[in-house]
């Protein structure tokens, strides 16, 4: 066990995977010498060689497309895209090739690969560095979309993603990279892709989120608990395949739900969760599901960021309104 933050847990997981399995290779911009823009691959090139921790030209489609070819030929590539806002040049490769090869070939060829992408705002970054467009990946059949929010899950889910026989989009919450530490086992362990994690159990209301917004969601839960409300906190962790049963079980019990995400409201993944709850828990729902999300705007630059990011207050108010009904 070691006390690690998410960045360290991810670095450790990659190190472990490279050591455990010869087929694992890492590729991406600046991941070698520089150790990645967030230092997630720090030291790995030194330890595992430039053949397996590969610096690439600035060409996202090339990175993902090459990783795809490697995966089809039996390797276990882990590609890094520097920010979610830079993943779109590779969107065609992801949607039209990576996600489809098993289907196209009736299992003959597969793409067991991971695309790691830091995402989310709140660090005062430049344009395109703050997006949360997980929904445009979660809508693509053939992918799995995974989002850890704790150091333990970061390690366990990343090792599971690398072992997964299908392609995984692995989204890393930038704002949490170095925000919290927890004990992370050093052994090789996997966290199942799929099931939600019930982080706190409660009976009055379910707060449901993922990624960096788990931070505000936890804070909101604590604040609500101080007013005597019993809050269930759910970290969705896997957007696809979505654990509908887990979410429905929670809301069937509490009768109320607030879904929180950073992405714009319209067409965000919260819509899927809200719709699922309403469709499946209509008769146990005691109030409409509330969505607390980013606005339908471009993620703003530093000076306006706080106007955009869903705040603890907004979550608490939404929960209170939900509880009043």
């Amino acid at each position, binding site marked *: 066990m070691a006390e690690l933050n998410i960045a360290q847990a991810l670095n450790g997981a990659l190190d472990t995977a490279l050591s455990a399995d010869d087929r694992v*290779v890492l590729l991406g911009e600046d991941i070698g010498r520089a150790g990645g823009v967030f230092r997630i691959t720090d030291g790995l090139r030194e330890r595992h060689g430039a*053949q*397996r921790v590969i610096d*690439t*030209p600035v*060409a996202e*489609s*090339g990175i993902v*497309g*090459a*990783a*795809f*070819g*490697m*995966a*089809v*030929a*039996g*390797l276990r*590539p882990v590609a890094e895209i520097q920010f979610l806002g830079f993943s779109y*040049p590779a969107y*065609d*490769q992801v949607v*039209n*090739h990576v996600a489809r*090869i*098993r*289907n*196209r*070939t*009736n*299992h*003959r*060829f*597969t793409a067991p690969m991971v695309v790691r992408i830091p995402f989310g705002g709140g660090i005062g970054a430049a344009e395109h560095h703050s997006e949360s467009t997980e929904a445009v990946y979660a809508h693509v*059949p*053939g992918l*799995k979309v995974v989002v850890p929010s704790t150091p333990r899950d970061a390690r366990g889910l990343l090792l599971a993603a690398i072992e997964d*026989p*299908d392609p995984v989009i692995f989204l890393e919450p930038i704002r949490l990279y170095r925000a919290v530490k927890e004990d992370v086992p050093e052994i090789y362990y996997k966290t199942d892709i*799929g099931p939600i994690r019930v982080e706190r159990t409660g009976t009055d209301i379910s707060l449901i989120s993922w990624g960096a917004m788990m931070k505000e969601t936890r804070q909101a839960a604590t604040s609500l608990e101080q007013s005597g409300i019993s809050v269930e906190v759910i970290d969705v962790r896997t957007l*696809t*395949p*979505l*654990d*509908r*049963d887990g979410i429905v079980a929670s809301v069937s019990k509490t009768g109320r739900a607030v879904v929180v995400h950073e992405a714009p409201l319209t067409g965000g993944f919260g819509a899927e969760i809200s719709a699922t709850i309403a469709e499946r828990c209509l008769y146990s729902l005691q109030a409409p599901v509330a969505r607390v999300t980013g606005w339908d705007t471009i993620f703003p630059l530093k000076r306006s960021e706080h106007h955009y990011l869903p705040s603890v207050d907004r979550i608490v108010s939404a929960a209170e309104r939900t509880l009043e009904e």
Partner: protein
Amino acid sequence: MFNLINPDGSVRDRLPVTLDEMKDLYAAMVEARAYDDKSMAMQRQGRLATYAPFRGQEAAQIGAGAALRPGDWVAATYRDAALNWMAGYPWRLLILGRTGDERGGQVPEDVYVLPPSITVGGHMIHAVGLAWAEKLKGSSRIALTSFGDGATSEGDFHEAMNFAAVYELPTVFLCQNNGFAISYPTVEQTRTETIAEKAEAYGMPGVRVDGNDVVAVMVAVKEAAQRARSGKGPSLVEALTYRIGPHTTADDPGRYRDEAEVTLWEEKDPLTRVRRLLERSGAWSLQWQQTLETQASQGIESAVAWAEAIPIPEPGTLFTRMYAEPTPPLLEQAGEATHG
């Protein structure tokens, strides 16, 4: 432009193939043409989905295919059935795919051919990744990717060429320049005279070959493959050819080209010139030709019969094809789909 056999069947130089090899190449082209003709006919009868004929491009595809070794990877396009077949993709699966059945993509275990790429350009980098994996594994397998002139306009062409060159990967880039991207002539797609010269922008050798000369193509691709196999990195081979048929069965070439141009190219037919060469060598007879054609068409017919006898996929297979194990949402949906 590198060529060896003239349209009249005379040769420029001593051919680096035996007469028997020449006959085999010819037989392969005859078989490929039988497949192409049959596919066109079937599509007109509504038995196949949209079909992209390769008539006129047989030499480019058979020549390239003949240059490969078992185990080499191929990532090619919707128009490359003959190349894919040379690399081991059975006609029956190609046909099954064209009837609109995903199982057509399930090539046998010892065949290393990706299913035909429908999107233009995206598959070139796959060959780069395949080659990269082989290089890292220390194998001597290479990857060939085939694509059209039109595909060289896509950004993915650039990224694939650059990656292959930068990492010195055993990749062969084969461009079948057939004069058009659907209706858009090659001469308008780019300001260079040739596609081959674009290789220089990647520090890679590039050669233009007569794409209707099966031996010239074979030689050029073999050289490129040899280079790749010996660790010297990628090359680009441009096979200059012409699409005699429409872009696909949904296309009307009358809108964008003159019949005269087609006639001109029909005179350079890749099969005819080899037949003339064999005639000159006394190695051709009408009887042999008829035998070839009969065998070819029997082979294709039985492939068609096989593919058409395959029952359409069960609805449930939609769900089981998606992941190694169907996910819970898919299991739920499969239930709905099959029980209403």
